[in-house]
């Protein structure tokens, strides 16, 4: 067994330090290993700490207990091997698409590199995310799908081998969502990136990932995982197969078990 790319060990996170009037911790005893080239989805009810777990992996939030290693090292914010794609794209409205995608490079270079050099890399990332020709547009001029593509390009621009996606397609209409899901799969097969995806959508989770990790709430914890042995490259036809339906059912069953606990 090779070493995991992302290794989350016994991670607990609680926001109040007084144990006397303690609310349940945000996350309790979370263990998760993600291996090179995998697509893994995190599903669970809202407020179960899925997005928080992504922030812990990014390193912007330190765990109360336990440890997180990315490529065997402690997670540090701004590490270029890791790209983050947030919900609602979060593009800066005062920057053009190109300047938005360039931003992580600017931050990394700290003004030492020529802008044209950075622009070239940003354009390359936009090509990967299927968003050529919109470089000089401002975010408010883009459709939801284009915004999300730009956010994806921003996540890829530093040459990240790992992509963390926080409900990236939640705000899109069905058709655009499917399109972007296929583009993500395509990107994965070309680049071999490791992808960790947070989603509410069980179908999306099963369609995209090799493993679906199901989380429960209060405290946020991992209930179990469902392995999806459908071969990559995948296309929309697998959604009609009995295997797909079975996997969706298994994820659903895990989630329902958590409801029963209350």
């Amino acid at each position, binding site marked *: 067994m090779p070493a995991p790319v992302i290794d989350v060990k016994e991670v607990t996170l609680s926001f109040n330090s007084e144990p006397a009037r303690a609310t349940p911790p945000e996350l309790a005893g979370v263990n998760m290993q993600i291996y090179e080239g995998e697509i893994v989805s995190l599903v669970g009810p809202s407020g179960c700490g899925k997005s928080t777990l992504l922030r812990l992996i990014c390193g912007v939030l330190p765990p109360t207990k336990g440890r997180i290693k990315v490529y065997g090292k402690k997670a540090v914010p701004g590490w270029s091997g890791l790209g983050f794609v947030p919900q609602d794209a979060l593009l800066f409205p005062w920057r053009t698409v190109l300047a938005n995608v360039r*931003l992580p490079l600017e931050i990394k270079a700290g003004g030492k590199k020529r802008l044209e050099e950075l622009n070239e890399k940003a354009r390359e990332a936009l090509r990967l995310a299927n968003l050529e020709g919109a470089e000089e547009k401002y975010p408010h001029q883009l459709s939801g799908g284009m915004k999300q593509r730009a956010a994806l390009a921003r996540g890829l621009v530093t040459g990240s081998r790992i992509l963390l996606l926080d409900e990236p397609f939640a705000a899109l209409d069905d058709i655009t969502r499917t399109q972007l899901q296929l583009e993500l799969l395509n990107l994965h097969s070309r680049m071999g990136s490791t992808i960790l995806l947070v989603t509410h959508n069980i179908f999306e989770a099963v369609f995209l990932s090799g493993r679906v990790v199901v989380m429960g709430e209060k405290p946020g914890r991992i209930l179990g995982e469902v392995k999806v042995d459908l071969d990559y490259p995948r296309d929309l036809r697998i959604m009609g197969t009995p295997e797909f339906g079975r996997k969706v059912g298994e994820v659903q069953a895990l989630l329902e078990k958590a409801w029963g606990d209350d």
Partner: protein
Amino acid sequence: MINMECWNRENRRTRTWRLTGFGALIRENYEYFSLPLGLFLFLFIWKTASGFYPSFILPSPGEVWGRWQEFYRQRLFFHHFSATFLEAFGGFCLAAAIALPLSYVLAGNPFLEKIFTPYIVGMQAVPIIALAPLLVIWFGFGITSKVLVAALAAFFPILTNGVVGFRETDPRFREMMAIMGAGRKTIFWKLEIPSALPVLFGGLKMGMTLSVIGAVVGEFAGAGRGLGYLVNSARGNFDTPLIFVALLLLALLGIGFYLFLSGFEYLAVPWKRRQKG
């Protein structure tokens, strides 16, 4: 097919003809006509109204124009205009130089804001016109006291807009910057400043207009030159045409300042250009 061609050509010709009509010319380009048309109407009403009153109450546009030419020939224009310009602009710059950094500090520090707010509001509650004589006593009849009055007038809107602008930085953007590994300085230049700019410009525009008012108020309280001084001394001589000259120059100064800042805003805030008309 041929008929279709003829119909099209005919139709196009009709449209071209319509476009050259005078009514259509105005309808299609009304934005270029609105300004001279408005000016013409204004002058016409003024001219008509002035026929009913003696010159020392309401001089006609022609009289005011004549007074302006005389005023200009006496080489007094630059003497007075430059004083008010410097007072207003200097006061605005002074206010912005203090209010903008202060607003950033207050926006990021609720405790300091609680300490400062009563004094800032109290200062704002004192009418500037009542404060001006005091400043003239303290700083003399020269330009300094007027710069300070103008600065006081401009200070408040710049500060409040600054606090609002800097405080409204989206926390999700902050987190995004942190994830990308940005430090304090980068977050300031690449997130906080651009995110606050549209609101900052709102305050600056208001402050710039108020600084002209402040300069004039300061001159009223005691001065030897400036457009406000000119109004005051012309009043003593019942030289109403000269008052009109001074008022029009003040209006031009205010508009000039406003346009200057709007142009600056156009360059500095390009992403807001085509939003909402």
